[in-house]
């Protein structure tokens, strides 16, 4: 009889190893999915949010919604399914799932017993009013006298980037304390981007913090705001009210002033917070008007890499990467230099130019810090100098392919081991017993590893009970 009492439960305890704490960057859809139905329904009471949700939907879903926007009765599901062509039925199922999850449409039965889809009444009403008019005006559009201290887009851009970089600067060099409030620090801590140092309690940057720094500006703002929204209820602010205002802001026009008239005290506090992060500009706290900045515009489209479209005054890229792994960064910002230094070895520094070189060591150091190769490549791509973007092929892939591949290879180098939890079976008395168990495990697809000479095999942990049962039955039978 085979004795497998010695089933050495040498399972590798690697739960701490597989726990990857990468920065999780939700988009609007994922965020809304986590909200309860009742909040969603309240949110849809405002045209701005309906508009934002609509834009966030997949392309096919947008077409479905607009097709039934003016239909006053449920549309049979079979009819909706017939809109898409057969070859793309997978897309169709995906889209219907999303629309249902977001409560944009609801199931409703038709007189003939068919089940149909019907747009949520609130969503439909408010999307229509955003598109065609009607309903109440948004609460920041009261008429204003012309501002004698009117600000133009350039001023607002430099203001907002100054404010935002202040936050980023604080993250990388916590010594510098000015220009950032305790509130902002609390949010950074809450978001897990920084944590209190065990020794002196001062905030230090975390792994997620480094990943955060490498995101593009839009994604940073959106992630930060989501974390902020997590805490609004503790501050006694209304989540729905804040979200509504945020989306109104995101649909405003750059370089135009808006009135604070009719805003609740809670919103005014929220506005001051946004002012601190540079999302809005206000000359004085009591000015009665504010200017949204580029940071606040279209905040939801965080996944869109090329937001600055056709606008000449959008920020310009500054990094040139050469095939010899040299990186030239035309910048005088300490922050940008520090970011480049995360994954390159700096060689020279000039007043407006930094030269570094990407090496295996520098990349591995970044990887060990929790930054992924994709993040590095994404950062380089996103800030590529316009010289690198010229040319037809370069538009899609501005970086030299050899550098991109090498960075990815260096990352793969570190991922040579894959961990599985398993149970070791050993000390079989006969080769036949071993073979039987091996066959069984193999046919069920739970075999991880086996060695015929030593008569040992490793089986997936969750299949252990099953295999044990089989073994008992088998050994009894023989």
């Amino acid at each position, binding site marked *: 009889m085979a004795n497998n009492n010695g089933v050495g439960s040498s399972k590798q305890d690697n739960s701490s190893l597989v726990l990857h704490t990468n920065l999780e960057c939700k988009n609007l859809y994922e965020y809304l999915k986590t909200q309860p139905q009742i909040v969603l329904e309240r949110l849809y009471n405002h045209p701005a949010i309906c508009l934002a949700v609509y*834009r966030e939907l997949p392309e096919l879903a947008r077409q479905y919604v607009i097709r039934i926007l003016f239909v006053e009765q449920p549309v049979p599901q079979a009819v909706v399914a017939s809109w898409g062509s057969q070859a793309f039925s997978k897309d169709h199922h995906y889209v219907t799932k999303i629309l249902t999850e977001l409560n944009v449409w609801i199931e409703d039965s038709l007189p003939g017993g068919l089940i149909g889809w019907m747009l949520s009444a609130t969503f439909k009403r408010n999307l229509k009013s955003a598109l065609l008019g009607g309903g109440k005006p948004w609460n920041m559009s009261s008429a204003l006298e012309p501002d004698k201290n009117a600000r133009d887009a350039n001023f607002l851009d430099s203001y907002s980037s100054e404010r935002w970089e202040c936050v980023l600067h604080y993250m990388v060099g916590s010594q510098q304390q000015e220009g950032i409030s305790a509130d902002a620090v609390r949010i950074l801590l809450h978001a897990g981007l920084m944590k209190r140092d065990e020794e002196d309690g001062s905030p230090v940057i975390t792994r997620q913090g480094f990943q955060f720094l490498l995101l593009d500006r839009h994604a940073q703002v959106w992630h930060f705001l989501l974390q902020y929204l997590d805490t609004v209820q503790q501050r006694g602010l209304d989540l729905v009210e804040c979200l509504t205002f945020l989306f109104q802001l995101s649909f405003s026009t750059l370089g135009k002033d808006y009135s604070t008239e009719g805003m609740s005290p809670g919103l005014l506090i929220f506005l001051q917070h946004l002012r601190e992060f540079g999302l809005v500009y206000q000359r004085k706290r009591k000015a009665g008007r504010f200017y949204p900045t580029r940071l606040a515009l279209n905040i939801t489209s965080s996944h869109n890499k090329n937001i600055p479209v056709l606008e000449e005054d959008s920020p310009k890229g500054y990094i040139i990467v050469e095939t010899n792994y040299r990186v030239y960064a035309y910048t005088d910002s300490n922050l940008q230099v520090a970011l480049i230094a995360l994954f390159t070895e700096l060689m020279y520094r000039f007043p407006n130019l930094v030269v570094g070189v990407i090496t295996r060591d520098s990349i591995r150091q970044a990887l060990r810090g929790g930054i992924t190769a994709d993040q590095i490549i994404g950062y380089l791509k996103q800030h590529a100098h316009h010289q690198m973007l010229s040319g037809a092929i370069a538009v899609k892939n501005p970086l030299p392919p050899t550098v991109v591949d090498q960075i990815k290879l260096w990352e793969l180098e570190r991922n040579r081991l894959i961990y599985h939890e398993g149970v070791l079976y050993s000390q079989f008395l006969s080769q036949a017993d071993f073979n039987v168990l091996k066959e069984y495990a193999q046919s069920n697809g739970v075999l991880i590893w086996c060695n015929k000479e030593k008569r040992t095999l490793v089986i997936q942990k969750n299949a252990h009970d099953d295999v044990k049962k089989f073994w008992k039955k088998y050994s009894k039978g023989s």
Partner: protein
Amino acid sequence: MVLSMQKSFERFYLKKMNNIELRTENEPDVSSTDETSLLVIIIDTNPTQKLLRDKASQLTTVVDSVIAFANSHLMQKAQNKLAIMACHSKTSQFVYPGPRKPVDVRQVDGQYEIFLQVEKTVKQNLSLLLASENSTIATESLLAGAIAMALCYIARIQRTKSAGIKLNSRILIVSGSGDSASQYMNYMNVFFTAQKQNVVLDVCTLDQHLSLLQQGCDITNGLYLKVPQVSALLQFLLWVFLPEPPIREKLVLPPPVKVDYRAACFCHRELIDIGYVCSVCLSIFCKFSPICTTCHTVFKIPGPLAVKSKKKKMKL
């Protein structure tokens, strides 16, 4: 600065050094393409078209529907671009973005500010255009000219856009005019230019079947639709013309019908099945003429033996 960051970074990774992480799989991109799409809409506002002669108030329906449709296009994506042109009997001009400085609008109701601005600008510019109309002589709409202007506009945007942005452009023509071959050459020129520039030409006709424009749609892979009733125009527009060309293959849309590819002759501008073609410049004539009017080549008058003649019969 750099130093402090390096330091904190080092402190950080030393703690985490032993951690080995697994690669996380990136989720598939939920949203669609991040391309910009530029839509130029050409509205035929010629007062002599049959649709408006019957009932002038139908222009309001058409303009309202087109504005709502244009705003739906802008609603699709934040980076979508829009231009609207009015095509008149003697002139074609842009009504959005207008020639003047954009009007400063404040919201009056729940409508999104930019949509309101589109609506205001279009209506204002259109009323100016209609008010300036004073002649009563009936002439046909200059659609080919309007398309040429739209192509120029698209080319300009294409040139000024910053590198790294992909622009999908298309032109939508909404017209109630009848079919006429008098602009045949101009039409063919703009169709093939559009094809070369990768601009899709969509046509929505409100009244009569337009075979020439249908050829344009076929050439540029656009959609052609004759709307059965003008009152339902918006729904037709949203249904058929709102999806951008990349998404169209995922939807079931009106199948392409057989296109009438007859050419117009150069002498009388009539559509013909069989005609004479100049062997030098390929001009088409419905009747034989000894001198080609386009390139002035002299042909021999066909003698009794037709085989010897230089003229060539060609089936089209």
